[in-house]
């Protein structure tokens, strides 16, 4: 495993440093959990189980990818869960015009929310927490208004297919999440947009004086985050086979932020770790699954999650203080 190599190469048994933990801890933790389950949990390494785990984590991964970009700019987007609900509420309204238009409407809603968030942050100059708090509150309300507070069954086979179909034995949802992760990684590391995003997160004033289109990039980042959240809302709806704006995506902002932070992206911006974010989401999913499989209650899972978040941030703090 790549994450073990630094210690091995040194040829000495040394305690890993906090910096090492921030960089590789999440991979090591995922590996440890997988190994643990492979040995101690019945039916863990079965296709069916792995499939379930991946399908469950996919929407979180998709939202967390957008969140990672936002956090990379020293921001945060609390409205992602509400955007998921908004997307879910729009789907049944437009399915009558065809699947494509319904999908487009849902994603467009995400883009609009993102644009509003981005404008409030970049142009008006509000703190990201406040700016996105407004749409966190208002977004779900709007979704409920649109859906008239109702849960609606979905019958469109194309949409349901997104939730249940496979391509080459891999569920579509998982495939989409995987492709998006690669895409976001490419954007972050290889495009001017990605590098600018990181520079703006690192030092916004300097980026502005260097002639970078700060406002445009910030708005873009929030739009991407909104669209990804809307897509996650669509996929989650497809899996549920029903549009449920009142509960879909609740606490998703916390799960996404957790995945990003546990994945080693600092909350202070200036760095985005895409693979880390994916593994962060995976870690939390595996943790919950492991505890459930071993008959430990949900309360334990939540407290364990709390501890992991704290450890992840503590480790990041050590690194920064140097």
């Amino acid at each position: 495993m790549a994450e073990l190599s630094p210690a091995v190469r040194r040829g000495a048994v040394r305690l890993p440093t906090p910096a090492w933990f921030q960089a590789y801890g999440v991979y090591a933790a995922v590996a440890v959990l997988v190994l643990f389950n492979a040995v101690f949990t019945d039916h863990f390494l079965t296709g069916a189980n792995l499939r379930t785990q991946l399908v469950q984590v996919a929407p979180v991964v998709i939202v967390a990818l957008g969140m990672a970009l936002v956090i990379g700019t020293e921001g945060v987007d609390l409205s992602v869960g509400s955007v998921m609900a908004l997307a879910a509420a729009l789907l049944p309204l437009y399915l009558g015009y065809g699947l494509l238009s319904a999908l487009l409407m849902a994603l467009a809603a995400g883009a609009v929310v993102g644009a509003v968030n981005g404008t409030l942050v970049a142009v008006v100059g509000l703190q990201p927490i406040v700016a996105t708090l407004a749409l966190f509150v208002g977004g779900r309300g709007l979704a409920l208004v649109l859906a008239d507070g109702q849960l609606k069954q979905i019958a469109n086979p194309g949409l349901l297919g997104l939730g249940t179909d496979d391509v080459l034995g891999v569920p579509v949802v998982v495939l989409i999440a995987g492709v998006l992760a690669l895409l976001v990684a490419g954007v972050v590391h290889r495009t001017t947009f990605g590098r600018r995003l990181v520079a703006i997160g690192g030092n916004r004033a300097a980026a502005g004086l260097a002639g970078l289109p700060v406002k445009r990039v910030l708005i873009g980042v929030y739009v991407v985050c909104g669209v990804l959240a809307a897509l996650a809302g669509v996929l989650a709806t497809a899996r549920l086979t029903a549009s449920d704006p009142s509960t879909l995506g609740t606490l998703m902002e916390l799960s996404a932020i957790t995945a990003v932070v546990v994945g080693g992206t600092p909350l202070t911006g200036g760095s985005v770790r895409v693979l880390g974010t994916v593994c962060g989401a995976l870690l939390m999913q595996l943790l919950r699954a492991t505890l459930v499989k071993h008959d430990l209650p949900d309360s334990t899972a939540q407290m364990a999650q709390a501890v992991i978040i704290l450890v992840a941030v503590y480790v990041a703090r050590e690194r920064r203080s140097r």
Partner: protein
Amino acid sequence: MAPPDAAPAAPPPGPDEGPTAPAVLEAVGIGKRFPGVVALDDVSLTLRRGEIHALVGENGAGKSTLIKVLTGVHRPDTGEVRLDGRPVAFARPSDAQHAGVTTIYQEVNLVPLMSVARNIFLGREPRNRLGLIDFPRMHREAAALLAGFGVTADVRHPLGSLGVGTRQMVALARAVSVRAGVVVMDEPTSALEPREVETLFRVIGDLHDRGISVLYVSHRLEELYRICDRVTVLRDGRLVHTGDLADLDRMQLVAMMLGREVSEVRRHGRTGFGEDHHPDREAVLTASGLTRRHVLDDVSLELRPGEVLGLAGLLGSGRSETAKALAGALPLDSGSVTVAGRRLGRPSPAAAIRAGVSLLPEDRKAEGIVAGLSVRENIVLAAMPRLSRAGVVSRARQDRVVQVFMKRLRIKASGPEQKVGELSGGNQQKVLLARWLCLEPKVLLLDEPTRGIDVGAKAEVQALVDELAQEGLAVLLISSDIEELVEGADRLVVLRGGAVAGELTGERVGEGELLEVLAAHAPAAGSGPDDEEVRHDG
């Protein structure tokens, strides 16, 4: 080296004592290391009662660390701090304060959002019988205290609404009012105007008379010689010299700070600038009537290829603002900037950069570097669109550019992938210069390019400015170091109160002439720069 004198048996008490006054605050054999650096190595310092003691050294010499050890911010690894002869261990700044050692820091000292009075009495507010804060009394006492420092501002206003100099005075008032026996001042005049410096010196004189000791950190030699009794010189975390300031002349002091021979310093001069340049006649950048309410008032200037134009003025005169306006980073009420015959439209840094105008901002950390990114990424930050295709960055092209500039500017880093935040100030500044030079600008605006960097890098940057002008670049140089301005610039535009107060060309570019324009009273209506009568010294 020079060991601190042992305190004599029976010192005559009283303020006006010479070298025999008893030691108040002592650092004995202090050692302090941080991960990867030895900040202080066996440094000792003795501060006597009522003396004004200068602490000097280059950046990285360990001045700040020593102050922080003396005032309880850091704990020494070895050695001890003694107060009135007794060893003390300050665990935090409040411990030092309670013991009568207070500090006025260069930047952070007070809370801008809180009122002046609240700042002064923070942590020791006067109470009424109910144990609640007595605001009327607090305001009365604050106003009375400040009046002694020549400050008449409303003590109920937020501190942030005051000018930098006034804020510094408030910090000083606070420090003195906490019954300090020792006041440590870290670069107290760096943000002050001459008038405020005078007030500060008067206050320091009062402290001296009252038997309060002052540890005075500054690299402005004139100030040291004016007010300080003794001096301690640090270099690379070690003690180089302690003694009476009167026994050293300026060249000796500078030589000690730099660790060079006096003759060598003399021979090279103190800046890295060479001869004057011979600019083209045609201006590449023309600014006319730059105006912004309260900030700039009808500033017009021209920059010609191949010349270094110095922009002089005191703090708050609009120097940095003018540079920012030229670079599109300051919204204007009126006025226009024309570059190479093309007028810039809606001002933005991006538009200015496209037109060939680059600004090296004054505050390197806050507005320049992106500390968490590599040297490579910092250099190509502004040039990214040119080094990429269809929004995808080309690593190969970046590497070529970065290699060229790291070599040309002699950027000392472990490699292009080292984080900029880990470099020294001088190298960070060079990275920023590289960022702009790789855009091949026509006009380079340098706002305090050598502030806060070590002497070696300073000379290199100055030489580079020279070289760039030789190559035909138009350079605007802003510096609060008069010597640097006079030696570096071919022509000087002097600003006062956001307006152009005068221009010095040719023979008239000299320290004396500049000081006269700077110190002149605001011109009456109608008198222009041409009316300034400039006398020569000899």
